[in-house]
């Protein structure tokens, strides 16, 4: 059995290698090969899953040690895998959703001449992500961690000819790098503290060291999580990441990669449990981000960016839950899985809409599409209901539990977090309804030519500029795209319910992430009720604003908050002014210093030596007699010296 684990990672890795090195001759079959390998690793995952279920709850974890990777003195890093329930969950999510999205991409990327490479990148991503969740030590996890970063860089920038895409890719990688810095420092701390960084010993010995060190480690891990999971303050890259093809957004920036942060924190639970301050920081970040993302999501007119905001906010929920400790881990993961389903579904839906609207992303150019693409409408709608937490659907179960746990975290903190989560739920309902209404209901705004606006020149198709405008012909997407959407829709409808049947999911994870029931100051029923109320309010407001009266073709100026939210709450402006400008100034100054001071000193020495020798050259008059004079002077000096020596 263990040997299969390596295969799990190996299959997509081989796929990536073959597809990327294969060259043109693979162009015809490339996407099939990629999809096949994704499915293969999914099947292997299922096999391992079945096998795991066959064993007792406690000894379900599998270990596979391939070889010693970096052995230097006390520093012993291994290429070794660990497959326990937590990893298993991720493996199934990644390979499952991954396979679906491979299938989807076959249709979606049909007309792209670089499709082979696209599938290569996707496989690379799968491999890296699986490595991330299967690693049995933090260093190997780090490899996967940066691996997914690379894959996301390549995929965001897949349409490299668009400067915006290239820039977004670079930004994503850089921001992630900041997070990775945190992870690497955390690993160093672990090494100096425990002398190792394998999960087993570190988490086992977490209790034995000072809380200060653990807090430091925890905060560093949190920084890493912020980078990868687009949490405040490192969230700025996720919005731009939507430059990538939609399947990428669905797989990497909704379902899997961005949730790696949650995995990291849950995995390192033992450390956080022993470091309350770190936990507080985690929940704070989570709470802030879930509101931040939600607010941003409300203001975006670009459908993908709106969804990105929502992703941010949902992951905020997960991080918050993970920060709550044993009462939250399980729910964090559960929400992660369900979110994986419905958010992927939503993105695929968005992709299908764009596919039908020849790559228009501005929701103000949509409207009344439900008639034209029914399947998309239905699946998207189910995903919508799931995410806003409509009772009975996945989102309801997972999010409701998180809200309960938030309240249960106790004390004022509990109340604050609870309020934040509730508010977040309300805003979620609002902006998702907004998206739904603007896209599928109302008048068909795309029929008439758009009024060009200075705000978003990027989304203007070239046609408008020339004046003549033929409206797009919205049509349902091909089967290869709809089927995955349908499957995901099923997931988003039933997953939550299935998991919650006598807390199956919680108990499944319990051996890894210890679980205990939180005792909320208010009854679970009350929480549920209030959730539903908030939800209704959110939907209502959205309907009042976008359902009743027609959506203006051009975004109204809006309040300051709206404008700020459109600009990601001015985060980018801040970065631009502080980091980009400052950095440029700094480097320019340094260049000047390097030339003037550092190199100047060197050249100065050279020049001065030259000048000195130029002066000395004057002694060379060419007159024999002055030479003779110098000789005599020298002789005199010598005689004088000798006399001195003999002590005159």
């Amino acid at each position, binding site marked *: 059995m263990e040997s299969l684990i390596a295969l799990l990672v190996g299959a997509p890795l081989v796929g990536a290698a073959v597809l990327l090195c294969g060259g043109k001759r693979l162009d015809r079959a490339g996407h099939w090969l990629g999809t096949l390998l994704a499915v293969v690793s999914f099947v292997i995952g299922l096999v391992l899953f079945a096998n795991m279920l066959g064993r007792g709850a406690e000894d379900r974890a599998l270990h596979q040690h391939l070889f010693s990777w970096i052995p230097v003195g006390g520093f012993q890093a291994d290429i070794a895998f660990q497959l326990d329930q937590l990893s298993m969950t991720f493996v199934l999510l990644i390979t499952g959703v991954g396979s679906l999205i491979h299938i989807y991409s076959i249709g979606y990327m049909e007309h792209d001449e670089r499709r082979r490479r696209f599938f290569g990148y996707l496989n690379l991503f799968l491999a890296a992500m699986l490595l991330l969740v299967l690693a049995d030590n933090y260093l190997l996890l780090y490899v996967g961690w940066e691996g997914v970063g690379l894959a996301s860089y390549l995929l965001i920038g897949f349409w490299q000819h668009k400067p915006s895409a290239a820039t977004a890719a670079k930004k994503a990688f850089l921001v992630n790098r900041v997070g990775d810095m945190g992870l690497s420092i955390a690993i160093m701390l672990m090494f100096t503290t425990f002398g190792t960084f394998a999960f087993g010993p570190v988490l086992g010995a977490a209790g034995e060291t000072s809380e200060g060190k653990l807090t430091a480690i925890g905060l560093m891990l949190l920084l890493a999580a912020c980078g990868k999971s687009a949490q405040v303050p490192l969230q700025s890259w996720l919005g731009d990441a939507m430059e990538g093809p939609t399947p990428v957004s669905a797989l990497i920036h909704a379902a899997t990669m961005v949730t790696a942060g949650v995995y990291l924190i849950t995995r390192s639970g033992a450390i956080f449990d022993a470091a309350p301050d770190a936990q507080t920081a985690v929940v704070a970040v989570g709470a802030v981000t879930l509101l931040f993302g939600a607010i941003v999501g409300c203001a975006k007119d670009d459908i993908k960016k709106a969804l990105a905001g929502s992703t941010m906010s949902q992951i905020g929920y997960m991080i918050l839950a993970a920060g709550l400790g044993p009462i939250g881990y399980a729910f964090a993961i559960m929400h992660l899985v369900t979110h994986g389903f419905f958010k992927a579904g939503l993105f695929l839906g968005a992709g299908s809409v764009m596919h039908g609207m020849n790559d228009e992303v501005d929701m103000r150019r949509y409207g009344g599409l439900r008639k034209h693409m029914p399947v998309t409408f239905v699946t998207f709608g189910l995903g919508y209901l799931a995410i806003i937490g409509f009772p009975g659907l996945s989102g309801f179960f997972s999010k409701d539990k998180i809200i309960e746990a938030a309240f249960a975290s106790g004390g004022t903190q509990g109340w604050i977090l609870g309020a934040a989560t509730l508010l977040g739920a309300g805003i979620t309902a609002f902006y998702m309804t907004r998206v739904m209404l603007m896209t599928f209901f109302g008048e068909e705004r795309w029929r008439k030519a758009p009024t060009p606006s200075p705000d978003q020149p990027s989304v203007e198709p070239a046609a408008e500029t020339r004046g003549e405008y033929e409206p797009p012909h919205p049509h349902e997407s091909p089967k290869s795209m709809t089927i995955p959407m349908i499957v995901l829709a099923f997931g988003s409808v039933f997953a939550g319910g299935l998991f919650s049947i006598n807390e199956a999911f919680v108990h499944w994870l319990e051996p890894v992430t210890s679980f205990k029931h939180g005792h909320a100051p208010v009854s679970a029923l009350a929480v549920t009720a209030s959730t539903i109320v908030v939800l209704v309010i959110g939907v209502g407001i959205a309907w009042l604003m976008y359902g009743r009266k027609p959506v203006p073709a051009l975004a109204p100026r809006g309040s300051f908050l709206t404008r700020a939210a459109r600009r990601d709450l001015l985060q980018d402006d801040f970065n631009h002014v502080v980091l980009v400008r400052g950095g440029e100034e700094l480097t320019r100054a340094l260049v000047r210093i390097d030339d003037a001071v550092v190199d100047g000193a060197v050249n100065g020495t050279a020049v001065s030596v030259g000048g000195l020798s130029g002066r000395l050259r004057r002694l060379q*008059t060419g*007159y024999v*007699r*002055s030479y003779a*004079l110098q000789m*005599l*002077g020298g*002789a*005199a000096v010598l*005689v*004088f010296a*000798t*006399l001195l020596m003999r002590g*005159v």
Partner: protein
Amino acid sequence: MSPSILAAASTTSTGEAVQFWILGTVAVIGALATILMKRAVHSALSLAGTMIILAVFYLANGAYFLGVVQVVVYTGAIMMLFLFVVMLVGVTAADSLKETLKGQRWLAAGAGIGFGILLIAGLGNASVKHFNGLGEANAGGNVQGLAALIFTKYVFAFEITGALLITAAVGAMVLTHKERTERARTQRELSERRVREGTQVTPLPAPGVYARHNAVDIPGLLPDGTPSELTVISTLRERGQVRDVSGESLAELAALEQRSSEWLERGGTGRSAEQRRGEQARQRDEEATR
């Protein structure tokens, strides 16, 4: 010499002292004259004087052989060589003692005096109370002693100096020898060229007129009594050492006429002025034929 130097002593004979003080003074004066005389010849002569005095000192110091050698080699050979070169380069070529290099003279004086003071100071503190003379060294005769040393201890140095002298001689010849680039012209060719050029068909005139004077640096006179540069060799001309005698020769001519006229008057009154004029004419066409 005085017997006092035959044994180790702390002082020398008074005679030698007197000799030292007198000759030493002369030697210094000669040395100064060497460096201060404007004309090279004078420098050479005063140097020669100094050298002879040094020779005497050698003798006084029991270096008989060296004393003689000094006279023979230095004053005899080397100084003569100098004089020859001086003649080649020009006896009268006097260089002005005006300094051209900036500050050279002062620096030179400073350095020289400083150096001298240092040397003398150095000697001064090398206090030699008594000295052991060359008594036993010269016992078998100074020349024999030297010979013994030269042909035993210093034989290699001696041989090498031999080689050195040969080399020097050859070197001097090589340096001074003028390589003749083209074949020397024969008389015929020379005369033919003169005719071709036509500027000076006849050979150049010889110096000295009427054998009144036979020095090479006196130009011949043209019929009108003016000196002709052509008659002096180019070297002297270059050095500007042509003695101008035109005036004196004319004076001599006048004196001659005077005497002859007197003689004629004493000899008889038949001689008249035109006779005298005829004489002068004769002289003139004699000149013309020259």
